[in-house]
């Protein structure tokens, strides 16, 4: 097909993708007295919306730290050490990545309830500290690094922890960037588990709070709702505009392979 035609069709696709989003922003800005940020101010102050924001940030930060640390440890161990049955365990873990998590929804809820952790940051973070997909990514990456540096460090008498955190860790930057992107996005947008594991408004994350806002008994108007939606998407969109190439690469890395 001629390049000009392809460009025109792509431009039409661009409009189809961008139009609903632009419309969402337009609705959030159009108030009774002209274009203003009034809805934004009101939705932010409408009870716990600022709290949702803080919750989302705290939860994402804890889950990110856990994944960077623990997945690196496990991924490195699976890549470098001979563990009896290690390969089998790794394959089993791998096969659970794609299984629907809904299967553990009810039992996890019962578990958290019995432990008295419903409505706490514990419930929102503990189960998500180590994502097997991240272990897989890190293991694959470590396998492609030559062992020379580690051997040299070992010769110098470095312990295994020193080798991992001083020698290997700095070399993992590219894959850790992918892990960070994948973890932050998944967590920031996560709905089902935070929805089930919290009851009170003060512990909701942004997506859950937003969904609740739309179905409350005194359901609010669309202008405020769209302002809330824009606010909740803002950090992600900002990060996307800055790290666009990294993010696209990172989120399609595990997929196209």
């Amino acid at each position, binding site marked *: 097909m001629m390049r000009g035609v392809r460009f025109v069709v792509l431009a039409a696709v661009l409009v189809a993708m961008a139009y609903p989003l632009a419309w969402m922003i337009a609705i959030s800005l159009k108030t009774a007295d002209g274009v203003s940020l009034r809805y934004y101010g009101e939705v932010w102050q409408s009870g716990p919306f600022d709290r949702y924001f803080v919750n989302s940030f705290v939860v994402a930060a804890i889950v990110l730290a856990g994944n960077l640390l623990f997945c690196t440890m496990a991924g490195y161990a699976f890549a470098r050490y001979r563990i009896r049955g290690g390969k089998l365990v790794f394959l089993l873990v791998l096969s659970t990545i794609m299984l629907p998590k809904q299967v553990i*929804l009810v039992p996890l809820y019962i*578990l958290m309830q019995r432990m008295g952790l419903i409505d706490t940051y514990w419930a929102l973070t503990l189960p998500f500290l180590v994502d097997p997909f991240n272990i897989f990514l890190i293991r694959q990456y470590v396998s492609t690094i030559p062992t020379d540096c580690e051997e040299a460090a070992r010769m110098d008498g470095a312990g295994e922890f020193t080798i991992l955190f001083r020698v290997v860790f700095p070399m993992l930057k590219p894959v850790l960037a*992918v892990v960070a992107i994948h973890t932050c996005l998944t967590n920031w947008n996560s709905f089902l588990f935070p929805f089930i594991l919290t009851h009170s408004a003060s512990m909701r994350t942004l997506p859950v709070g*937003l969904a609740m806002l739309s179905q409350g008994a005194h359901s609010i108007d669309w202008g405020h709702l769209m302002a809330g939606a824009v606010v*909740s998407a803002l950090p992600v969109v900002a990060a996307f505009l800055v790290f666009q190439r990294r993010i696209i690469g990172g989120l399609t890395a595990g997929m196209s392979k």
Partner: protein
Amino acid sequence: MTNRRRFVLPPVAWFLLPWAAVYAAFFVFPFVFSFVLAFLDYNPLNVANTRFVGTANFARLFGDPAFGGALRNTILFVVGTVPVTTALALGVAGLMRGKIPLKGAFKAALFLPSILSVVVIALLFKLFYAPGGALNQALAGFGVAGHGWLTDPRTALPAIMAMDVWAAVGYYAIVLDAARTSIPDSLYEAAELEGAGAWATFRHVTFPLLKPAIAFVLVINTIRSFQVFVEVLVMTQGGPLGSTNTLVMYLYDTAFRRLDYGYASVVAYAVFLLSGVFSIIAMRRLRPETAEGRPI
């Protein structure tokens, strides 16, 4: 070397411990527990009366019209969205071939919906489909009467499906585009020299070489689509008249609104089984490719 590695087993144990603890407590244990739950009559408000009911929960599944409806809707959703999304994604990926002005902007716009929360997208489209929403306003411009897209049982599910295609197509287009960059340009030049048209080029160059990537996209999207829930919860709550009730929506209803944990576990296993089949196919498709040793 092997010997020394055997000796340093303790550090390995430490490396694996945090993952193993979290995985055991919050995945393996609930997973096993869910299997046990499926054989119990378990009401959280009356735990003392928990009884073993054998396979009664499973038997109930077959005589449950609400489950049948949810299963039918979910299959309709998967069958109606996945092929359309894949075909459109293929088309868009094909358009992005070679040097195109503003390619970065196209990619960004295509990718944007996949970084947004499904809640945001669902709210946006709930308003889009609303009686006074953008869709009806646009239709009015053509003299077409407005329609309650989400309140008519005939159009509610298709409306949600259309939204899903909109939200998913860009991501898969980018994935397929990434896979397509591995096709050498010389093949396209050769096809052009032979006088092959757009369709012939697609049919004989792009499609055969993209087959593994297409298969993978199909499988991943199918697994994801079997779990459709947030859209339904935000937009229709499964209504009107159960016309958008999906398996996971029904699972949520059974567990957290009717507090029937045992039966909910059985419904969960239905979702599990359906997508488990596709996971196995996905793994099969993946294996020969990873064997080629392409790093991440």
